[in-house]
């Protein structure tokens, strides 16, 4: 018990006594909390600039352009006379979509023939593409249905009958959990988990590379350290995953007990993974370099922004070995989607499994390393003695 407490105190002293480690684990965490979310503050993309090429120039086509301009998603910023000029605007990034209304648009409509219009949306930026499509296609479809209903009303059918003839099945789309499609709501919760993991790994990895030797048995030391991590992150994790989302006005449906049930094995898994990484990479600079560069790849490997179903099976399995993969899913499902313990249970199990696995790996690595280090130290002493003798 004393050995455990000694290790706990030593770990905390190592974290708070070393300005470098403190700056990685606490200062960087604070700076990232400010810098990372900032570009997404407006949440939604509105009024994407589009150009309308109206070759018909009729009352109907002008009305369509007005309807499109009125939608929240897009704004008509230019009415170039030719397609070539509209394309130039897109290349200049002054417009991200083009609506082309061909000649004879209104006449065809009135004659009861199918009348085509075309949308060209810039797909080199996906969010722009989506907004342009919803902004133009919505009003265009409405106009289409109106025309058809008007036509049928003219032939004497009733309004509901006319509407059902045009589209006999109504589709209702219900976006769940992030109904407005806010970008900050989408990306930030996952990013917060990843930032937490990377700074924690970096800090604890540095502690591990700078540790003074101790005579206490390794399992007791590991238990003590784990206690220190849990103590520190009992503060930092709720700051990052509860207070920060609240400060940024993100929806939060989670429960603190559920967060604790995810958080405890997460902190343990990340802490022991950091020990294992430090045991393999050994030098502080290398630990920092490797962890810094892994941040972005791990985010996309976690299957949050790029669906995990689309990962090759081998990578999908490998991704499960990284604590952030399960924690991002668990945290997002709990805090943003309101999942209960029944839905979270497999993820909690996975995090505990990782914690135990990395603790075991650390134990094996350290035991192996301490054997070789001992012999290296003995060798050094002997050569120094030899030097003194000369």
């Amino acid at each position: 018990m004393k050995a455990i407490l000694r290790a706990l105190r030593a770990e905390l002293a190592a974290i708070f006594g070393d300005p470098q480690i403190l700056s990685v684990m606490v200062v960087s965490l604070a700076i990232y909390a400010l810098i990372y979310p900032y570009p997404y503050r407006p949440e939604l993309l509105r009024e994407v600039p589009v150009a309308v090429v109206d070759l018909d120039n009729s009352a109907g086509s002008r009305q369509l352009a007005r309807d499109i301009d009125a939608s929240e998603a897009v704004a008509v910023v230019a009415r170039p006379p030719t397609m070539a000029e509209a394309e130039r605007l897109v290349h200049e990034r002054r417009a991200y979509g083009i609506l082309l209304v061909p000649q004879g648009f209104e006449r065809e409509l009135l004659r009861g023939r199918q009348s085509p219009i075309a949308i060209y949306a810039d797909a080199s930026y996906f969010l722009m593409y989506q907004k342009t499509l919803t902004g133009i296609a919505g009003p265009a479809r409405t106009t289409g249905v109106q025309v058809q209903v008007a036509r049928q009303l003219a032939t004497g059918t009733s309004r509901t009958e006319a509407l059902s003839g045009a589209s006999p099945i109504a589709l209702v789309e219900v976006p769940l959990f992030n109904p407005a499609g806010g970008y900050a709501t989408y990306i930030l919760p996952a990013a917060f988990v990843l930032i937490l993991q990377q700074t924690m790994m970096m800090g604890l990895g540095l502690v591990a590379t700078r540790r003074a030797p101790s005579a206490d048995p390794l399992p007791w030391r590991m238990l003590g350290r784990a206690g220190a991590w849990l103590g520190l992150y009992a503060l930092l994790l709720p700051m990052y995953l509860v207070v920060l989302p609240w400060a940024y006005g993100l929806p939060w449906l989670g429960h603190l007990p559920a967060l604790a049930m995810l958080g405890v094995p997460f902190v343990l898994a990340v802490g022991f993974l950091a020990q294992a990484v430090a045991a393999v990479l050994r030098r502080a600079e290398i630990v920092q370099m490797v962890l810094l560069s892994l941040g972005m790849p791990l985010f996309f490997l976690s299957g949050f922004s790029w669906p995990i179903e689309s990962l090759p099976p081998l990578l999908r399995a490998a991704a499960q070995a990284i604590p952030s993969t399960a924690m991002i899913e668990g945290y997002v499902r709990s805090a943003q989607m309101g999942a209960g313990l029944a839905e979270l249970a497999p993820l909690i199990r996975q995090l505990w499994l990782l914690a135990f696995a990395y603790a075991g790996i650390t134990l094996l690595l350290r035991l192996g390393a301490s054997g070789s280090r001992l012999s290296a130290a003995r060798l050094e002493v002997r050569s120094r003695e030899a030097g003194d003798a000369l």
Partner: protein
Amino acid sequence: MSGLVTAIRREFRLIRRRPALIGLTVLLPLALCVLLAFVFRSGVATNLPVAVVDLDRSSLSRQVVRMLDATPDIEVSARADSLPEARSLILSGRARGALLLPAGFERDALRGARPEAVIFYDNQHMSAGSVVARGARNAVTAASGGLSVSLREAQGAGSLQATAAAQPMLLQTHALFNPALDYVDFLLAALMPAVIQLMAAAATTYAVSLDFGPGRHARVLPRLAGGLLPAMLGKLLPYTFLFMLILGISDVGLYGWLGVPLRGSLLLMGVGAALFIIACQLIGALCFLLTRDFARAISFVGVILAPALGYMGIGFPREAMPPLAQAWSALIPGTWYIQLRIDQSLRATPMDLSVWPVLYLLAIAVALGLIVLLRLDRMRSALAPATARTARRTA
């Protein structure tokens, strides 16, 4: 000049001798690019699991479900008996959405009462959710259109007439520059340079710290190279070369293996790439020169370049960001390099517009270069008396 060559030779010798240096500057970035390439290799998300709550169990409802399953975006993964069951499937991640077909669906459709098919989709996982929504929209619209035409044909209209009446305004949508909406072209092509940006800066910080860090003999290399400036150049240029090589290899993978189109000027891409790498390296060097401590310098590099992907405007466009974020993103080399790449690969942008990102990159590189020079000048005056002293002593 010969001093510079000596310094470059020495650096390459160092790289060969130190496994850590070659691992961090060459193998790690390459490995990460390969990893990302495999993550995004499939390019488009297909067969996302969707649950079906079919409360009608009629031939029409079964047909809608078949059409849903037939869209490449979606795979009907589960049949739920109730909405709460479907909700639990979505919450646990076993489904990305659920289609509800209410009781009386077929009867209402044939009677002209317009029954509602409801697609619930997980919009917290927005990229997966929007694919599911699109797939369901296509499937239900197709089913509805088919039914509308057959109803009219039953009323005695010709099939062409029936189609025109069902769909008076034909909406043709064209996805400019990336017609397949491929994530490889859109995201991976920007992600690789973003990773290389961070790595080039971090590797430079590391390499510089090996000679100028605390506890190192900061005067050895300047003396060898005949000055601080050639010493610094000799330190940086080998990594410029290596990271150009890494960028080149990842581009062979991207434009060759993964088939991202390349429709612009290779010369412009090359010049831009060189300026981009140099600018990243200067950020790394500057972070070190300002702190003179590797750990602090590398945290600076991280703070500047780790969130850079968000500021580069790939996912959330720059135009929508707050003004301060736009200004900051304009200072990040990757912002302009990615724009140049998108212009030259996907968009085939006219030449007069294409040169702008290169000019921005040039401006950033020159500005960073000047700051580094100023900083070196200060260092020189700090080192000078000592150098003079050693010179006197050897004399």
